[in-house]
């Protein structure tokens, strides 16, 4: 069976005063129906931009999608006209963002923002839409939902707004939910509420999820597969257990080693990654991680490696060398 979403070699750039920012440099990924893919990376790694490109939500200009294909159920989203894209965004793919306040319209009630989508995409009449909106708010766990339909976004707390945004993303029963750092702005107890909510919805509706985050902890408990991104490239991809147990790319190893753990009894020195992420305008010619890499060889500075399988077909790294998690070259 072909994957639900099949992204092939997508490249996205932004033209700025300082030059062309090469935000996404040939990202390929796929998501099967019902599966959860985690995308991990630091700020500027291209994780959000790659997904915004998939949704064709890149402001053009200054951005432009240079090349690539986004096959959703076999149909290339990048070749559709605006109306057809809008239809798919509204009914098949839901998206949740980090900051609900920039997404929600401050002068429309929460209820109206949900019913608008329902009327537009599902052709419901006003009272049906309102009834469905109420169901949705209850589904995402907003207490006394009937009393909150006529509230404005500013009357909601941060966690409640995030729930409302999830309700809007779910309103047309999407088969794919793209969540872009939906819990980053939230407190940890509220974050736990949202994660449990998405897990429950995923179980109940069978939707696939792409969860973008910088937090390797969240991904560990949520994803089936993980893509690690650096400087606009996917540098490692593996099933979640495999990635954490046996990271093979020096960057992934560095990230995992640099995290203090909640369950660590003894204090050890954290393995920090030296240096800083690269300038996306002047990316190095070779591997973008080479300037910070402890295992670099001459070839790394000259040629940029592409993803290749290292352990089964599922576990791939973009690295000339193969560093086991013990730090020895294999």
């Amino acid at each position, binding site marked *: 069976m072909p994957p639900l979403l099949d992204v092939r070699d997508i490249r996205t750039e932004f033209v700025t005063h300082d030059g062309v920012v090469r935000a996404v440099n040939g990202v390929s990924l796929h998501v099967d129906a019902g599966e959860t893919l985690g995308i991990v990376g630091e700020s500027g790694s291209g994780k959000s931009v790659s997904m915004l490109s998939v949704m064709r939500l890149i402001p053009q200009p200054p951005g432009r999608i240079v090349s690539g294909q986004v096959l959703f159920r076999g149909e290339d989203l990048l070749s559709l006209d605006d109306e057809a894209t809008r239809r798919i965004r509204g009914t098949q793919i839901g998206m949740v963002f980090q900051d609900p306040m920039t997404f929600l319209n401050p002068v429309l009630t929460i209820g109206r923002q949900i019913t608008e989508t329902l009327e537009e995409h599902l052709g419901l009449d006003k009272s049906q839409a309102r009834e469905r909106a109420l169901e949705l708010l209850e589904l995402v766990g907003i*207490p006394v939902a009937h009393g909150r339909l006529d509230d404005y976004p500013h009357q909601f707390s941060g*966690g409640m707004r995030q729930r409302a945004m999830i309700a809007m993303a779910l309103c047309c029963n999407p088969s794919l939910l793209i969540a872009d750092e939906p819990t980053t702005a939230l407190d*940890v107890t509220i974050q*736990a509420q949202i994660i449990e909510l998405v897990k429950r919805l995923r179980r109940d509706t069978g939707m696939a999820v792409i969860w973008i985050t910088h937090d390797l902890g969240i991904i*560990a408990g949520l994803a089936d597969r993980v893509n690690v991104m650096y400087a606009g490239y996917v540098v490692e991809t593996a099933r979640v257990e495999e990635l954490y147990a046996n990271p093979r790319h020096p960057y992934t190893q560095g*990230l995992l080693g640099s*995290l*203090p753990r909640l369950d*660590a009894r003894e204090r050890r020195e954290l393995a*920090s990654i030296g240096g800083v992420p690269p300038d996306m305008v002047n990316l190095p010619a070779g591997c973008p991680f080479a300037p910070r890499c402890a295992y670099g060889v001459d070839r790394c500075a000259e040629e940029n490696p592409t993803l290749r399988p290292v352990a089964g077909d599922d576990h791939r790294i973009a690295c000339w060398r193969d560093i086991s998690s013990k730090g020895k070259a294999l």
Partner: protein
Amino acid sequence: MTGSPPQPRPGYPDSDALVRVEDLRMYFPITRGLILSRHIGDIKAVDGVSFVIRRGETLGLVGESGCGKTTAGRAVIRLYQPTSGKVTFEGQDLGGLSGAALRQMRRRMQMIFQDPYASLNPRMTIGSILAEPLVVHRVVPSQQIRERVEELLSVVGLNPYFASRYPHEFSGGQRQRIGIARALSVEPSFIVCDEPISALDVSIQAQIINLLVKLQAELGLTYLFIAHDLAVVRHISTRIAVMYLGKIVELADRNQLYENPLHPYTQALLSAVPIPDPALEVQRTRIVLTGDVPSPANPPPGCRFNTRCPVAVPQCYQEEPPFGDLGQDHWAACWRLVS
């Protein structure tokens, strides 16, 4: 157990206490009306906290946004004039100080701020940012200032040659190093670190944490480390205090707190933190709290956690629980723990 409600006061003798905080309160007035502004209430950001910070230790202060942890940190070093309560630093009551005497004390207590972009003056070079406290506090004679600035830069792992550059030329992690160098410039014994790594990328966070740990060991510093990331706090702290809605609900040694949390809020908070280990994550049971934190302008009567507590009993809605030592220097404020 100590004392009877409602006065929590852990006045335990601590001969090695560098900082002693007793029943500290910090209220911010809410006013209405532009011309004849009337005082209609208070945001009780910090509402009666007591703790000591021992010489050479790191006291972690954790809690969610709005719990009052930053306000507490600022009130401790008198960046705010507290509403009430007492802060003693090296045996001296900070409340009674003003002017030159307070400035003298400020040399001993410094702060590292959360936002490395907002806390450095964009119009000053790094050299003049670091020289300013040296001049104000007359730390070194003027002909040695330049040398001292270069030394400070190398202590925090930056090239001394950066002194002539401006803040915008630096990354977030480098700026945070500059903030640390500025705090160190006056040779303090106590530093309040207010979320020093929250604005940084994951791979840079570890660099700053390692630097803070190294500096503490080399210079014998005492830290009050304020953060919301519980894994980071466990890593860096000696003891940890958990705040909720203006109060400390639990305080214990780092391993004691994480392995044997007593307060239901601490238990929920710890269970909510994801651990980067898929095998472990599937086994964990999560205590998911319902609802949101109430407003600090109008905290609920009784225990402040009663609106979200999964194990509350009737007494929790009526009386505030005392903050007491439950043995082994493990303090908590919960009626369920009072035998």
